[in-house]
Structure formats: C-alpha cells, structure tokens
C-alpha cells in the first residue's frame, strides 16, 4: 500500500488546518456569534485585498514596508556580524564593546522610537534606524557566541596548515560560526517585520503598518485583517527566502531539520 511521503503529509496537514480555520471563521462571522463589523469573514478580507490592489494601495504599501524591512535588516545584520566577529575573537574589542551592547540589548526597541523621532525626525532615516537597531542585537549575540565558542581544534589545525590573518577568518572562523549567525539572522528577520509595523505607526503615509493603523481607525476591520495577514505572510516568506539564499551561497551548510 502506497503511503504518503512525509513532505506531502506535512503539506496536507498544514493545509487542512488553514482551511479548517478559514471555514470556522467564515461560519462564526456569518452566523453573528461575534459582531460582523468587528470580525469580518475571510471572504470579506479577501475582497479587501482586491479593493486595495485595484486602488494601488496594496502595491504602494508592500513596496514601502518591504524596502524598509530589507534595508533595516541588511544594515543591522552587516554591522552586527562585523561587530560580533570582532568581539568574539579579539578580547580587547569584547572588553570595550560587550558591556555597552549588553546594557542596550534589554531595551525594548519599541521604547526607543519616540527618542529616534526626536533625533532623526519622522522620515525614512528614523524608521530604518529603528529596524536596524532592533535587528542588531539577536544577530550580534549569535555571531559573538558562535565565533567565541569555535572548537580550539579548528584553530590549531588551521595554524598547523599555516592559514593566517584574514584567511583564517574566511576559511575557518566564519564557516564554523555560520550556523549561529544564521540562527541570529532568522530571529532578526522576524524582528525586522515587527519593527516595520511599529515604526510605521509613528509618522508614516504608506506601508503595511500604516494600512493596519489607518484601517483600524476607519473601522475597516476587513482591510485591517487583510494587511495583518499580509504582514505575517511576508515575514514567513522572508524567512524562507533567507534560508534559500543561505543554501545557495553556502550549499555545504547543514541547517536544523536537514539530514
């Protein structure tokens, strides 16, 4: 008897749950268990997507949010990896920088937004700064730990093979720390999308976060939910995209769940 492959099974199970939830949601809303204006059915949410696509708002808001998330994520990650490589390998850098970073790390990124607005205004700079700031910490800590805890045998072998200077960084340290760095990047990308939403609440005229907020205030719950689903979807797709890029650039890297 032919059994379902594990891949097909997980897709089937995941798809079933989503369809089941959508059906229950549609029934609960239509029957009026929860007031329909506050809890529109998924068919109306889908209609809101169509409406926003026709008016051009959907494309405008997706472009604005994705651009901010991408720039903020890349900036925060690059700086974090660079600093993490330094603090993880060079004691002097760790002594000077780690205490400051550890002091700033527990600060909720949302809490700094009023300050960032005062410093940078309400334009793109403040939004990208907020996103980069939030992304920096998970990427830094993972890079720092990954670099610091490289097995000594790797480094001894490298010395034995006369690998020195930047070559040891590129050929030994970075590859060994990469699983940790990837874990940090995956956390960072989720945080980037959270911060995109938060930063667009304070001084924006476009973006998915702005759409969520303005729809809420116009009591357009269908549009609000449509924008929320979109935000979650892009967050998930961004994670999948990140893993795909990493697999492409570093095909030898085994990520969790892979055999």
């Amino acid at each position, binding site marked *: *008897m*032919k*059994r*379902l492959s594990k891949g097909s*099974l997980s897709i*089937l*199970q995941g798809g*079933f*749950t989503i369809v*089941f939830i959508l059906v*229950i949601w549609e029934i609960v809303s239509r029957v009026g*268990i929860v*007031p*329909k*204006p*506050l809890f529109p059915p998924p068919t109306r949410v889908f209609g809101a997507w169509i*409406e926003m696509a026709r*008016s051009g*708002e959907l494309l405008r808001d997706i472009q604005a949010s994705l651009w901010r998330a991408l720039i903020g994520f890349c900036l925060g990650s690059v700086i974090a990896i660079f600093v993490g490589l330094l603090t993880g390998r060079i004691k002097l850098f760790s002594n000077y920088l780690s205490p400051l970073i550890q002091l700033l790390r527990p600060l909720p990124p949302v809490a700094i937004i*009023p300050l960032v*607005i*005062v410093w940078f*205004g*309400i*334009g793109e700079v403040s939004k990208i700064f907020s996103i980069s700031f939030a992304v920096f910490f998970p990427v830094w800590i993972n890079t720092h730990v990954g670099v610091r805890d490289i097995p000594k045998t790797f480094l001894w072998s490298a010395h034995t093979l006369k690998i020195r200077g930047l070559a040891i960084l590129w050929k030994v340290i970075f590859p060994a720390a990469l699983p940790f760095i990837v874990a940090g990047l995956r956390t960072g990308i989720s945080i980037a999308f959270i911060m995109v939403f938060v930063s667009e609440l*304070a*001084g*924006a*005229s476009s973006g998915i976060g*702005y759409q969520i*907020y*303005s729809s*809420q*205030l*116009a*009591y*357009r*719950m269908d549009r609000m939910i449509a924008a929320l689903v979109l935000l979650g979807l892009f967050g998930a797709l961004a994670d999948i995209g990140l893993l795909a890029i990493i697999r492409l650039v570093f095909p030898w890297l085994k990520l969790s769940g892979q055999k």
Partner: protein
Amino acid sequence: MFQLAQESWRYLKRSMRFLVLALLTTLVLTGCLNSSQTPPSSKVTVGIQTSPAMALVMVAQDKGFFTDAGVDVEIKEFTAGKFALQAFLSGSIDFAVSGEVPVALATLQENPIRVVSQVVESTTNEVRVVATKDDDVEDPTSYFKSKKRKLATSIGGGPEFYTYEFLKRYQIADDEVEIISQKPEDMPASLQAGSVDAISIFDPFAFIAEKNLGEKAVTFKDPELYSELYVLDVRPEQIEEKAEQIEALLKGMSEAGDFIEGNPEDAKQIVQKYTKLEKDVIDGIWGNFVFKPALTQELIEFWDAQAAWAKDTGKVKPETPAPNFREVVETRFLEKVSPSAVQLQ
C-alpha cells in the same frame, strides 16, 4: 490513487477530532472572558479622552454630580476618543465620549451606536492648521503651493476630516502636500523639530505648538470650515436597559455645565488635575468650547459631510449607503433633562 485518498481521509479524521476540541475550548474560554469583562450593573464605566474637551464629564465626576443624580461612574481614560469608542464597541466599557467623526466612520461600517448628547454645545477653531512660518506667507494656498509640504494629522478623527475640508477649501491638490499620520501628542515636537512643515490638530496640541514656536508659527484657521464636536455614545439596547443611568449621566453633565459657567476657574483646576496640562494652556483654549450638553443640527450636518468624505477618500466602499444620521441620535433623555438643549430639526 484510491489508497492515497483512503490514507488522506484517515489522517483528516484524526486531525479533525483534535481541532474541534481545540476550537470548542477556545470558544468556551472566549465566552468566559467576555462575561467577566462586563462590569456589575450598579456601576457604569465611561471612556473619555484625557483632554480639556471632556470638562463636562470631569467636573461632573469630581463634584459628585453623577452620584447625586444616582449613577456610580468609573472613568476610563484613553489617549484619544477614537480609542474609547473602540473599547466601547468591543464591550469593554459601558459608554464612551468621542469625537463625532469616529462615530460617523463606525456607523458607516454598521457598528451599532446611538448618541444621546454632545458634551460641548459648540466649539470654535478647536481644530486648526499650525505651520512653521515661511517668508511671511500668511495665506494657506500660497503656503502649501510654494513647495510640497509635509502636513501631519491624526487620522480617523476630526483633524483628518478638517484637513480634507481645508485642502478642498484652499484648492490644494493631493499631490501638492504629503499627509503624514501622527499621534496628536507627538505633533508639537515634530513641528518644532522641523520633521513636518505643518500640523492639523485639535486643542490643546494646536495651542501647545503655537506656544512652542512663538513668532515662528503661523496659524491657518477658518471658523466656518469645521470644528469638532464630542458626543456621548451608547448601544441601542442600552436605551431601554440602562435608561436610568443614561438620564442620570445627562443630569450630572447638565449640573456640570451650570457649574462651569458659574465657576470657570474651579472648573479649570479640575480639568488641570485630570489632564496635567499647564494652567496657561487651559486658559488659552478655554474660550474655544461651550461646555453644555446639547444636540444640535450642526452634528447631523457634520455627519452627512463626513459620510461624503469617507466615500471620497476610500474609507468606505463607494456602494455603501449613507445612513440617516438623524436616526443615530436619541433625544428622549436630553429632552427630559434639558428640553431647550435639543436643537434638532
């Protein structure tokens, strides 16, 4: 193929049992939480914005006029009336006082609301545009057409509607200005820092911005354009179920209106206690409000204009029928408490 379908059906049946159980548990818990949110009937919760516009409610509460009238009121404060209205619609509070614009928007989306009174008989220039002066340009059309300006406003409320009417009146096209959404309390600092060129907002933030900028500020105001009203919101079923409490609220506010008229300085002190605003700010804006419960024809006219605005700006679908806003207003309570205050056609 048939075996594949059989296998799939077996997995579906197993998954279904678990998911139905999870859903039932969620529904039960939701029901329990909702019932626990409803406050006991001896006390009513009223959501208000922490703003001088709520003076009638603040004075009535502080001086015990609500208690004297026979209702025990707990005030819940929100940063904006629109958030009080949302809490009211979700059932977290019994009543809300909000601007009339959020009520129009909520009604257009078929949310059940009734308005039993305004908490201000009228306001004057309560919403206005405050801008950073530029080469002694004092006329709004020249100011906004000289270059593309950033104009911050609070969306979903009176300021956004005022902005729409303002731009239309002074023939400023959508592409000649960038409208930015900001919280009211952030706007004065934003204007002062130069992040935006102008703000369209209600008092006290408009006044605070004027005060902070001093000579560098220019205010564009038009008393005939629009000035926000604030209303007491109830649910349709409360008209019968909470009739006594509603009447008592209006009696309390009517007493408060008389008190404010006779004792403005004491009233200002009470408002200062609630809002933590400086005395000179309250003094500066006090004259923009007439603190009396009322129901005026202006309210209906504003709502009709706001319905047109909502359609024009895509806040509602074009096919949404414009409601008869006169039916949103329930006059019987105010007619009983203060018949002359009902000025509707």
